[in-house]
């Protein structure tokens, strides 16, 4: 995953590059058109709102993953980390509730952000200072975070205090001018992510570290510093996702966020980010997250697929989407 002697993309005609970048959005549009044909309930505002809102978690985490992957690393621990951060936040909020009331939610969210950043920092340091392959390093922390949430909950669940449920509920179920709040939060995260990745020095260094670490190093880029920062951004994104997630079901369990890491990586790659690094597409990652959720939604809404074959059909659609992407290029 580290360095790859990649060809610095030769300047292509402007129109073709645009097509390649449009790939994930065309795929998304296609899936939506198919959805509308399959079931008329698909385009109802409630259904669309549901699907977009639920994809918020994977989309927010995918923004962080876009940084990590484009810098030439990988993070398999995000699902477990999300469960762990959720657990810590709920415990903190419950502890603070008697003295602070509803303000405990704000402080708890702050605690979550700090814990998320620290988890990301841990991953980053193991990879950069410890010089361990990101796949193995984060496979290790994935197990650690998952075990910690299981231990914290005794294998059961950690529910949020009843007094906090109502004040916290709007963060998932509420809306601003008709747009669900998690979607607004996702948009803010995506805009910030896009700004950092495309408009700052750090963003360009991220891509440089991912496309060729040696060359980046010779050009004076601290590859270790860039990658560690990317992991911290990933940790913050996980914490933001956790903040939106808690009010949905009001509890953390050992199965919270299970296998999300794979969904996140799939979303990022469908979105056009190269898995070997060097190229990040924030908006593409969001489209990828939406595509995954829409497909899952359609599997339920359609009556064509046997309940036993749902996962197979999803797999085929993802591979087809990637192939289409390849041919458009």
């Amino acid at each position, binding site marked *: 995953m580290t360095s790859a002697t990649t060809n610095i993309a030769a300047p292509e005609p402007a129109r073709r590059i645009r097509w390649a970048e449009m790939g994930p959005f065309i795929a998304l549009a296609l899936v939506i058109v198919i959805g509308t044909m399959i079931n008329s309930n698909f385009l109802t505002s409630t259904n669309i709102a549901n699907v977009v809102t*639920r994809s918020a978690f994977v989309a927010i985490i995918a923004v962080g993953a876009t940084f990590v992957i484009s810098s030439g690393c990988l993070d398999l621990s995000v699902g477990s980390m999300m469960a762990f951060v959720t657990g810590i936040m709920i415990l903190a909020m419950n502890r603070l509730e008697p003295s602070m009331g509803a303000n405990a939610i704000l402080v708890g969210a702050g605690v979550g952000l700090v814990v998320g950043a620290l988890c990301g920092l841990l991953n980053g340091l193991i990879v950069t200072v410890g010089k361990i392959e990101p796949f193995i390093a984060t496979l290790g922390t994935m197990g650690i975070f998952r075990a910690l949430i299981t231990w914290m909950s005794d*294998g*059961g669940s950690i529910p949020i205090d009843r007094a906090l449920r109502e004040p916290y509920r709007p963060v998932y179920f509420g809306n601003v001018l008709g747009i669900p709040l998690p979607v607004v939060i996702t948009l803010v995260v995506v805009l910030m992510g896009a700004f950092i990745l495309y408009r700052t020095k750090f963003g360009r260094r991220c891509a440089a570290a991912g496309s060729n670490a040696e060359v980046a190093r010779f050009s004076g880029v601290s590859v270790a510093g860039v990658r560690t920062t990317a992991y911290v951004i990933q940790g913050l994104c996980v914490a933001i996702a956790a903040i939106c997630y808690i009010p949905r079901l009001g*509890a953390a369990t050992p199965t919270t966020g*299970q296998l999300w890491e794979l969904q996140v990586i799939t979303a990022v790659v469908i979105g056009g980010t190269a898995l070997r690094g060097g190229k990040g597409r924030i908006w593409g990652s969001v489209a990828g997250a939406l595509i995954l959720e829409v497909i899952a939604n359609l599997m*339920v809404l359609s009556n064509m697929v046997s*309940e036993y074959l749902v996962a197979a059909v999803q797999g085929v659609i993802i591979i087809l989407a990637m192939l289409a992407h390849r041919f458009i290029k």
Partner: protein
Amino acid sequence: MTPITKRALGLVSAASLIALTAGAAVAQDKRTIAVSIPAATHGWTGGVVYHAEQAEKEVEAAFPNIDVIVKTSPSATAQVSALEDLSAGQELDALVILPFTSEELTGPVEQVKANGTFIAVVDRGLTDPSIQDMYVAGDNIAVGANTAKWMADKLGGEGKIVVLRGIPTVIDDERIKGFTDVMEGTNIEILDIQYANWNQDEAFKLMQDYLAKYPHIDAVWANDDDMLLGVLEAVKQSGRTDIKYALGGNGMKDVVKMVMDESPMTPVSTPYPPSMIKSAIYMVAGQFNGQAPMRGNFKLDAPLITPENADQFWYPDSPF
């Protein structure tokens, strides 16, 4: 020696003899019961671990000559290794096992039995039932059937319902079969049955999709209480009023509490208690100590949990 002292001496010696033999019997009767169960990876197995640990404390306190060893394993292969480690280190008088899978564990358990160990199997039976001396399980068919009977009765034998099923396993198949068999005898239409993997999040999403797909749903059955919590949240969010009942199963404490509080949407549940591991450990202790014979198959019933009897199924300290 007067006859009295003679008699007294005789009594004393007899008493000491009895005490001696009894003492020897106790020493001989030092028993080891090994308990092998899945690690706490979700609510139900969390409950299994909790109740096994409780049983260990209680049985050891009640019978000082019995030693209970609880080992948890995160996978079927790990459980096979755990069995090897347990039987290599010491002589096991009994093994209480909740196997991950029937097929993979049958051979290893048979090897443990070859050393003369009493085998008690819980929940999932072995492929070759002749290996197990004792079998304790809940009734998954009844979990489905009893819920279906109650629901059919309350809906007056007609209506439209949706079902959420768990992870593709025998347990899930049996519950669904118990449920659908009863429903076939009514005019109730099952609109949809899909997997939500006994996971709250997935159940929440699936229920949202059901609500989008079907304009009218009379009742929902999630075949596990963990999933039911996700379902209830989705129904609450939708603001729909057509759903009269949302039922689960398993007797999770949060849901038993709802039943106790006479929740209008979830007034009943059915138990498939993780504490069945405790029943098995107690029975094995009885087999060894009280000479209460415990060989055979024991099927725990799945009666409806109602507001009247809910306190019998309420374990506030258990994680499940």
